């Protein structure tokens, strides 16, 4: 290890710029970030997810997520083959009753699956950063809100901890922080994306199954992706304006 070389290198412009971005302050204070220029969301490419749990661990590290609670988690779906008895009767519809597991939110990955029948896939979940979010609608005091750049945030210095937002989220993305006693949830790594970094879960995903997208950026690859792929959001019947886009989402996912 050539420490001195690296110590010298850290002063070089490239490192300095990267470093400064990390340490930059508030979004409006950092000159190159304007809230009105962004509208954040995320793309989840289900066929790419291998269920390693890197995102869950990274999120916990980045955001000090307490054990047993999750800002993001991964579910493993197993949609069995069409079940029929010997006399030819159908017993259940696997589209309606898939087998789902998420041991400790998938933080340490998943047990090896040996049953080759049916169809398996992993579904990473997190806050959908809905444009018409039911959780911000119900907050009695305005402690949770959609930021001008489309991120659903919690003002933890103002939150009462009434948990009404937890009840209102159709996706189970919120929880009450056990020691802070306020609502807590995915911030889409707001402290990172406002500094030009991607989210911790995207940074840590080894297969690129998660992509932070900026819908207001015309150069964002999401626009091309949406044109060429079959993309769905979770529980579209909830009409939440979810901005968590799933590629190749199976109908059994809820």
């Amino acid at each position, binding site marked *: 290890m050539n420490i001195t070389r690296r110590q010298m290198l850290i002063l070089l412009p490239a490192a300095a710029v990267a470093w400064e971005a990390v340490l930059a302050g508030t979004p409006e204070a950092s000159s190159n970030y304007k809230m009105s220029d962004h509208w954040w969301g995320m793309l989840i490419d289900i066929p790419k997810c291998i269920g390693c749990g890197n995102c869950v661990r990274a999120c916990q590290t980045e955001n000090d997520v307490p054990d*047993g*609670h*999750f800002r993001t*988690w991964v*579910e493993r779906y197993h949609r069995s083959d069409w079940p029929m008895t010997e006399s030819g009767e159908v017993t259940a519809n696997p589209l*309606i*009753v*898939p*087998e*789902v*597991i*998420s041991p*400790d*939110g998938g933080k340490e990955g998943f047990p090896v699956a040996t049953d080759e029948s049916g169809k398996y896939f992993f579904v990473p*979940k997190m806050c959908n950063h809905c444009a018409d979010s*039911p959780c911000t*609608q*119900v*907050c*009695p*005091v*305005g*402690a949770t809100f959609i930021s001008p750049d489309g991120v659903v945030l919690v003002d933890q210095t*103002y*939150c*009462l*901890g*009434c*948990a*009404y937002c*937890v*009840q*209102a*989220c*159709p*996706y*189970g*993305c*919120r*929880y*009450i922080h056990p020691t*802070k*006693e*306020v609502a807590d949830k995915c911030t889409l790594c707001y402290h990172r994306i406002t500094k030009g970094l991607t989210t911790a879960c995207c940074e840590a995903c080894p297969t690129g199954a998660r992509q932070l997208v900026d819908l207001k950026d015309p150069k964002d690859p999401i626009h091309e992706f949406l044109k060429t792929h079959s993309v769905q959001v979770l529980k579209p019947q*909830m009409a939440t304006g979810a901005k968590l886009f799933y590629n190749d989402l199976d109908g059994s996912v*809820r």
Partner: protein
Amino acid sequence: MNGVEGYMYPNEITLYWSVLIVLYPYITGLVAGAFILASLERVFRVEAVKPTYRLALLTALAFLLVAPLPLVLHLGHPFRSPEMYFTPHSTSAMAMFGYVYMWYLMAVLVFEIWLDYRREIVLLSQSSTGLLRLIYKVMTLGSTNISPRSLAIDERVGWIVTLIGIPSAFLLHGYVGFIFGSIKANPWWSSPLMPVVFIFSAMVSGIAGVMLLYMGINKLRKQAIDMRCVDTIAMYMFYIYIIDFSLEMLDLVHRIYEANESFNSLNFMVHTKLYFSQIVLQICLGTITPLVLLFLTQVVKLPEIARKYMYVISGCLALIGVLAMRWNVVIGGQLFSKSFLGYTTYKMALATKEGLIVAIFLTLLPLLFLWVLVKLLPPWPEKSAPAPAAAD
């Protein structure tokens, strides 16, 4: 693990609305119901229930004073609760609680009680001594005018306040139902019938509560129970309970017939985790049994003593039934996963901030408040009131 069956989203395993949130609509409902009973006499001129008029008002006040306590206690940050007044969020059903509560407490209940008791307050402020005298003096607001003319004005204004109070009572409790009924994410709650069911069950519980209190207090004071009054109250309770039960059954039948995506999950829950509290306690014991008992008192000529027992039993069962209904709504709504793939378990704590002991204390606290109120403002006519002093 953790009492989970099937699959829950990992953040759903803990229930965030505990037994205290069960008490909140229950206590609020008792307020609304007691007030409606009081308004029967005042606005609808049902003279038979007059003996309970003042008791009903004081009961409503005693319970209303306690109503926000379970809410505030369950907050993670109780001291931030004034934010509800300072920055109420217009799109939140819960934000309006503060204002509706204040309106109902001050503009309706306290004002009406004050108007109704003003003559006594003024007289007591002159006849009592010591600290009591000071309390009554403050309550007069420095005005000792109890001329017939001023009392006539009070009577007229009180009538208007009661008239405003009826929709206010509906608002107070209907909106509590709306808090649950407007959550589209939760199929167990999301229903336009929810506020209506809440109002009618509230009326049942409030009327039952006041009836029991009236009978109990008269027993303690060794006074005769006015059977005409109790018969009338029981009759109203019976009719309102029929409406309430019909609405609840309508909701149930509608869910069963529509059988939408959540049905299998909810149906399973009602037959397992909620079987005792929903089927046994709420429907069979808490609704059908008192309905049958009350029905008997309406159609069969029964001796007075039998009617009394039946009223007491059906009143108690109704109170249990309505409490079970609140439990099934609040706790039941959090037992199933919004993925419709699993169920969790509610483990009630014992001695924590949201535990059983606090819950029992909060249930009994209104009775303590009522005792103080009754001491301060006796609801029975002239018995303990002092000889009228010359006023004005």
